[in-house]
């Protein structure tokens, strides 16, 4: 690789972020990873950092012990190296600067990553998620909703997928007319159909209404959506922006629906802030929780000032409003924001997840992301800073969605098939660019990049490790009896997600994990059941009849593929659950007696955490 000037530096110190501890080792720079290998042969910790995960590299001023290099990652890892020679540090620094700013898609890891699968396996991986089948599962097409081919060639809307579902009464001229009256041509289309009440969740972008403009086709379009649902005489139009933002947009010829022009709509502002506010908020949050010797007061004040949990609650409130309108009132809802690919995606996806237990399973959650985020054109490339960075486009919109789901798992521990490890792993790969799924900004771009031919699908990879992501407490029967989740939105139910934002700060995590413990039990359960069977077969040879094993309550049926054995194998950063810190627990607890909490210096005690 022509960008790598110094592939290896020895005697590099890795400083702990929160204590004064450090370890010495060797730093390797490869085409895809920055690798630190600890010299101590007994523990020999290895850290693999994917270049795509690096958000920023900073060279601090020279100290007596060497030249400090600070690397901040998008998966919230922060590493602090001290490199003995200034020259080496500079070489690494400038190589990294180049490597973490790929100039073309071809340079992304996904195009060189090869998990040793053949073409057929790769193809099967991409076929795992089928959105047409998903709409069928919802009951679409039906007598009121149909598939339209108007966007087959991406002529009406470049950022929408080819296949779109619209009311049967919406003719092509209406669709085309409506699309011309909407930002980026993103006209109202179906994203979720609540079969029980025939109510639809539709999404679009803001209307180009300015101060007084109107569009008859767009008005017809909304009417068609309304008419497709006989259960309700009105539809809700949810503008997910704060009213002030929507008003400001009017001056630019955009804006929101005028209730006078649309018959039977109920218009509602929701007040979720824009991508810039969210970016700033996360930055503040990370600053706070990355502070050394953080006091409780500074933590709580910082949490409040960052506004992060307030934003999370706003998204949750909006999703609950949506779910209630659909499931309780039986009304259809049209959701939009400005362009209809950030807040709209958050609210539609989270709202659907509240209504439909399927989206709370591992497969269903993949489908949901594929539908509301990937296919409808959430700009992953821009928001996650994959290529050609425009810092103003970066924003943790998808991260917020994952966090909202986590907040729900805290309130409903049995409602989800997956654990938080699954959410964290998805987050990892949204930024890793190791798989093709999240590359690019739209379906059309993904087709141009021929991702299905040239890269692998994350979903196949995650399903092959499904075992690691299961929630052992998941109960499908709870989902049957309570299909719609009704979370409490009391402020005290929203908590800081330590296992996400401090995921690499192992000293902060519980030293024993209930989740891991119960997962291990589940695994040993299968082994034991097998042993019981084997023993019985042997006993039968002696002519002993054995009663079938009857547990007090029969264990729930679940299809469980055998767990892939990764033990002892070196794993690449971000490619397995165990590498991510949340896997480490019992082991280190048993072997490591380091306090890691308090240190005594010169007889004067100082807490270091």
């Amino acid at each position, binding site marked *: 690789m022509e960008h790598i000037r110094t592939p290896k530096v020895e005697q590099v110190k890795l400083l702990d972020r929160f204590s004064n501890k450090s370890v010495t080792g060797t730093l390797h720079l490869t085409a895809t990873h920055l690798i630190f290998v600890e010299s101590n042969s007994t523990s020999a910790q290895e850290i693999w950092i994917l270049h795509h995960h690096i958000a920023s590299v900073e060279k601090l001023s020279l100290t007596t012990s060497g030249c400090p290099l600070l690397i901040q990652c998008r998966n919230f890892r922060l590493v602090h190296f001290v490199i003995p020679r200034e020259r080496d540090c500079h070489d690494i620094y400038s190589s990294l600067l180049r490597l973490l700013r790929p100039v073309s898609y071809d340079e992304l890891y996904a195009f060189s990553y090869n998990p040793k699968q053949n073409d057929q396996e790769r193809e099967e991986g991409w076929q795992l998620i089928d959105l047409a089948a998903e709409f069928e599962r919802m009951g679409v097409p039906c007598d009121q909703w149909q598939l339209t081919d108007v966007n087959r060639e991406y002529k009406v809307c470049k950022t929408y997928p080819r296949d779109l579902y619209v009311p049967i009464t919406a003719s092509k001229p209406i669709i085309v007319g409506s699309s011309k009256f909407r930002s980026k041509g993103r006209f109202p289309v179906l994203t979720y159909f609540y079969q029980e009440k025939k109510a639809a969740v539709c999404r679009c972008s803001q209307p180009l209404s300015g101060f007084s403009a109107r569009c008859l086709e767009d008005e017809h379009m909304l009417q068609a959506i309304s008419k497709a649902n006989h259960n309700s005489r009105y539809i809700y139009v949810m503008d997910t922006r704060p009213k002030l933002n929507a008003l400001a947009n009017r001056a630019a010829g955009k804006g929101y629906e005028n209730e006078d022009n649309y018959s039977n709509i109920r218009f509602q502002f929701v007040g979720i802030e824009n991508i810039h506010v969210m970016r700033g908020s996360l930055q503040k949050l990370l600053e706070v929780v990355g502070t050394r010797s953080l006091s409780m007061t500074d933590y*709580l004040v910082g949490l409040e000032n960052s506004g992060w949990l307030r934003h999370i609650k706003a998204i949750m409130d909006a999703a609950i409003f949506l779910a209630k309108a659909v499931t309780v009132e039986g009304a259809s809802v049209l959701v939009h924001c400005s362009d209809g690919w950030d807040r709209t995606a958050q609210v539609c996806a989270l709202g659907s997840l509240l209504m439909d237990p399927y989206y709370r399973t591992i497969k269903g959650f993949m489908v949901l992301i594929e539908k509301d985020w990937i296919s409808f054109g959430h700009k992953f490339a821009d928001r996650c800073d994959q290529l050609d960075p425009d810092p103003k486009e970066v924003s943790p919109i998808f991260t917020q969605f994952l966090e909202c789901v986590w907040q729900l798992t805290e309130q409903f521990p049995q409602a989800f098939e997956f654990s938080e490890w699954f959410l964290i792993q998805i987050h990892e790969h949204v930024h890793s660019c190791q798989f093709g799924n999240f590359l690019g900004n739209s379906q059309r771009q993904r087709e141009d990049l021929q991702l299905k031919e040239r890269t692998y699908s994350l979903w196949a990879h995650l399903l092959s490790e499904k075992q690691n992501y299961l929630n052992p407490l998941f109960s499908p029967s709870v989902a049957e009896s309570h299909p719609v989740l009704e979370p409490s939105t009391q402020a005290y139910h929203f908590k800081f997600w330590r296992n996400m934002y401090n995921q690499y700060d192992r*000293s902060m995590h519980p030293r024993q994990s209930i989740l891991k413990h119960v997962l291990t039990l589940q695994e040993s359960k299968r082994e034991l059941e097998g042993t019981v069977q084997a023993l019985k077969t042997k006993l039968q040879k002696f002519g002993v009849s054995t009663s079938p094993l009857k547990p007090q309550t029969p264990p729930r049926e679940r299809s469980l593929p055998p767990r892939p054995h990764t033990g002892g194998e070196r794993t690449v950063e971000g490619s397995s659950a165990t590498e991510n810190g949340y896997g480490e627990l019992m082991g280190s607890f048993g072997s490591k*007696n380091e306090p890691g909490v308090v240190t005594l210096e010169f007889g*004067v005690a100082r807490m270091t955490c």
Partner: protein
Amino acid sequence: MEFAELIKTPRVDGVVLHRPFMPTVEGTLCLTGHHLILSSRQDNTEELWLLHANIDSTEKRFVGSLGTIIVKCKDLRVIQLDIPGMEECLNIASSIEALSTLDSVSLMYPFFYRPLFEVIEDGWQSFAPEESFRDLESMTDEWRLSEVNKDFSVCPSYPSLLTVPKDIDDESLCKAASFRHGGRFPVLSYYHKKNGMVMMRAAQPLTGTNGRRCKEDEKLINATLCAGKRGYIIDTRTIAVAQQAKARGGGFEQEANYPQWRRIHKAIERSNVLQDSLIKLVEACNDQSHSMDRWLSKLEASNWQSNVKEILTTACLAAQCIDREGASVLVHGTEGTDSTLQVTSLAQIILDPACRTIRGFEALIEREWLQAGHPFHQRCAQSAYSNGKPRSEAPVFLLFLDCVWQILRQFPCSFQFNENLLIMLFEHAYTSQFGTFLGNCVAERGKLQLSQKTVSLWSWVNRPQELERFLNPLYEPNNLVIWPSVAPQSLLLWEGVFLRWNRSTKCLDEAYQEMVHIIEYNKELQNKVNSLRRQLAQLETEDKMVADLK
């Protein structure tokens, strides 16, 4: 005095009870000497039995002739009673008021309570000091059990038997006692078997402004040091507070007089500040109208979490001195009955696996709180809804329980007990049918003849039927020292206490049940495997014997 005099209206019909997350109940309200009872007189609805002593404060409101009494309890629950008729309502309210604020200890319910269960093991006899001394004797012969305080004249708040260094005679103890606040001279709190280091506790030394010293005190604590070793004195107060204490006759150990000791000051708040913190926290938790920002700012302003962090940090420090630095430790604050006990008891939970069993935890509370003279009666007289002038109330013990819960959260497999035990102890410390937490010290309890006239909490808890509820299904004993994280991100609000009445726990409870089920099913399978193996082995031997015979 007859309770009947205080009960103006013993019975009202048509009273409606409102509780959060529970259906309303309409029924008859009865007042007895110790209970407020509401019964719908239908078979399937639960009755409400509330001890008057559990009532922290009441409020009344009227809409027309319908009166409403809001009852705020010491266990933080708030219930509402709608009482038809203004006079009835006023009578009930004033009766409750009178009955819930009785001053005399001997009128408390534990003196009237008769257990409906057979006492198999008398909890009053379960944790004798002689017994723990026998354990100590098996590890070291450096200590002796002194009877110097047998009539409580040397130190009124200490028990009659105290563990002190073998080489220090009773006369020196008396002199040391006169140099310590309340006579609380340094005594053994914990012996760390692994390296023979000890933790002692005391009250502040009475150095005063002119720097008084006491040779016997110095000799006493030096006697706990091995030759050439140094020790740490952990003063739970900041240096400023400790300095101020000098003006009132108190103070701290001067380096010059204690050259083998290093003093460390920490900043655990005094008890009256803690009470204020509790009141603010509960107020924040009970206000359902808070926005996100307001909630966080109220939580912060209550300072509760800061207190938890500071106490836990100090305990970690004490444990670290002992286990990591191999040094002995002396802990004290001002009186040595509050922050001192928080630190010494938490440090033992960190260091000593025995304290993480149910029995060991009970012994710890008995040793480090009850016998060590934490004034439960004063501290737990009122809880978070006290609106009168605060006297000596403070949630010192509740904070200790909160800290234990934090460690339990971080080491969920290291404790034999679960959160329920901690919540139960919180409840009983404030109000109970048992006598365990009555009085302020051993001497007072003796005068009240609690062990004869009341039932011990431990007699009840240690029954197998009750214990089940407190067992942690995840428990796997380990002999390690457990170092909790004290980063703010690692410390959580104890929802089981503070949001207990403000949230529905249905989903959480069901999930817990599912977890228990998984664990139990696993055990069952393991047993099945074992028994099948035995059966098979037996058959195989028999088979072989038959074959051999042939």
